[in-house]
């Protein structure tokens, strides 16, 4: 199979993730969408790595996972504390800061 197809998939996933960030209200889901985008990136890295025949992309993918994991730690902590304070995980509820 032509590896380029993986790239298309990756782009698709990335777009789905992006649109998810834009339209979903629940902070957790939004965050998951971001993770989806990161994973789309990973797919692209791996694909390109395969195409170019070097390892850089794959290594990059590992780093991405690690970063994503760190992000989850931080992100969930923040989201949870907000949830506890507001009893709501909707990103739209957190709109005191504006104008």
């Amino acid at each position, binding site marked *: 199979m032509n590896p380029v197809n993986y790239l298309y998939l990756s782009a698709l996933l990335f777009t789905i993730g992006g649109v998810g960030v*834009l*339209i979903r209200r629940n902070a957790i889901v939004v965050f998951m969408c971001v993770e989806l985008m990161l994973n789309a990136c990973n797919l692209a890295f791996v694909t390109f790595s395969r195409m170019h025949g070097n390892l850089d992309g794959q290594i990059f993918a590992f780093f991405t996972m690690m970063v994503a994991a760190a992000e989850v730690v931080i992100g969930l902590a923040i989201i949870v504390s907000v949830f506890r304070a507001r009893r709501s995980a909707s*990103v739209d509820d*957190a*709109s005191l*800061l*504006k*104008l």
Partner: protein
Amino acid sequence: MENLIGLLVLVPLLGAAVLLCGGRRLDRIGPWLGTLLAAASFVIGVVLFAGLLGRSADDRTLRVTVFQWVPVGGFRADIGFQLDQLSMTFVLLITGVGSLIHLYSIGYMAHDARPRRFFGYLNLFLAAMLLLVTANNYLLLYAGWEGVGLASYLLIGFWQHKPSAATAAKKAFLVNRVGDMGLSIAIMLLFTTFGTFAFQPVLAGADRTGEGRLTAIALLLLLAACGKSAQVPLQSWLGDAMEGPTPVSALIHAATMVTAGVYLITRSGPLFEGAPDAQLAVVTVGAVTLLFGAIVGCAKDDIKKALAGSTMSQIGYMVLAAGLGPIGYVFGIMHLVTHGFFKAGLFLGAGSVMHGMNDEVDMRRYGGLRKYMPVTFITFGLGYLAIIGFPGLSGFFSKDKIIEAAFAKGGTEGWILGGAALLGAAITAYYMTRVMLLTFFGEERWRKPPSPQEPSAEPAAHTGELPHPHESPKVMTIPMVVLALGSVLAGGLFSVNDAFVKWLEPVTGHSEGHSPVSAAAVTGATLAVLVLGVALAWAQYGRAPVPVVPPRGSVLTRLARRDLGQDDFNHVVLVRGGGQLTRGLVEIDHKLVDGLVHGTAVSVGGLSGLLRRLQNGYARSYAVSMFGGAAVLIAATLLMRAV
């Protein structure tokens, strides 16, 4: 000797400085100090005169440059003086009459709260006027020119607490400023034409200059002269200027300052001679004004305003003469000097009458005063005879010559000008006789109580008491007597052996005109119209009783009372129109100029308020913005490559 010229100016200037800055300490001796300094400058003038007489007729010009005033590039204005016969004549007139009027003022202003300041202003006037006539260049002349304007302003408005006085003073200054504008542009034009504005080189270079340029310069100078000498169309201030104390009217607004225009034209003779069109304008202005002033003089009931109209008219004669060129200069100046005597005398007489009449100025409230003020009556009468041109008195000699010269202009112009001058003489006789009759003859109308509905120009004057007419003190009558003597004798003395003509000729040049009418015929006609005018006035005011409240009068009378509509015109066009203009500009400044900037600020603020709403607090909309931004960024990058 030359250095004395500077001293001539400096002495009264010093007086002004001392009197104005000296403070209350000088209140007592101020008037005497001022008079003394005026007299001192007269003495200096006489010494200089003697010195000039000691020289040959061609060598009677003294020149001295004190220091460079404004040297910038090719522009060089000096503080420098030039004393020739023309200037000398003026110097003697100014200091002579000036000293007399100082003396008179000691009496006249005795009861004023601040005579010191009054004398300071008078001295300032003398200094400025002397500067005007002795300057050796136009710029310095201009300095004197404005200086006398200032002095005039200060003195007209001397009783500042009266709004009418303050307004009149302001008006005088402003109208003069219009004329001054003409003078300053003329100086600029002289500078661009000749690269200098000193009298000597300018006048010498006039004959090499194109007529168009000379016409422009001359017309501008005429504008200046009109302002200072109260000639049509800038005459309106003179009547109001009578708000000032009467000595001021006598000195500044009759004898000296107002004649500065004549001096300017005469001084600039060569410039005018090269510009016939300008000369035509000058004689036209002169002829119109002499009639205008005379007509106005007929209608005024205020003695000073009647005399002011007369002054205007007489200066009209002088301007007419000056516009005629070399055939008229000498006579213009001669009339100027004789007028200086008799008109100053008349004003002092009027002042004396007012002094004895509780400052009443309405002639209709005088009458029969000859019994109470004999000296005033006699001196005033002599002045009266002089001005109407009674044979043998000074006015007769000078005015007659001008009428003659007007006819000598030749052609239709000559007839028109001569006719106008003759007509003027008739009217002069009429209104002066009217003044004389109303004041000194007839029933004693001042005994009638003032009627309440009378519109009084001067509410302060009416104290409710009837006046007790009395003769003025010596200090006032002596100057009047001296001036009356001058009025009687000056013309004759000047005409003996053509002395005055010979004296001035080296400066102004002189040529005999070829009159289409013989001199004798002119004299005859003059005398005839004189009799006519006197008779008319006698018929109207001598025989019939004079009503205290002025009758409505004819259209012409009413118009003349209102200065022939000039003030109405000024009011509508300048005051009201100007007011609307400035108010409109304020609006424009506020709404348009400022509004434009303000509008920019407001629209930035509005834009800010709109853009601010983008920041709606929803993280998802921020993400949209980022996502969109990224899309635009990508699209733009791709587009750049595509282009």
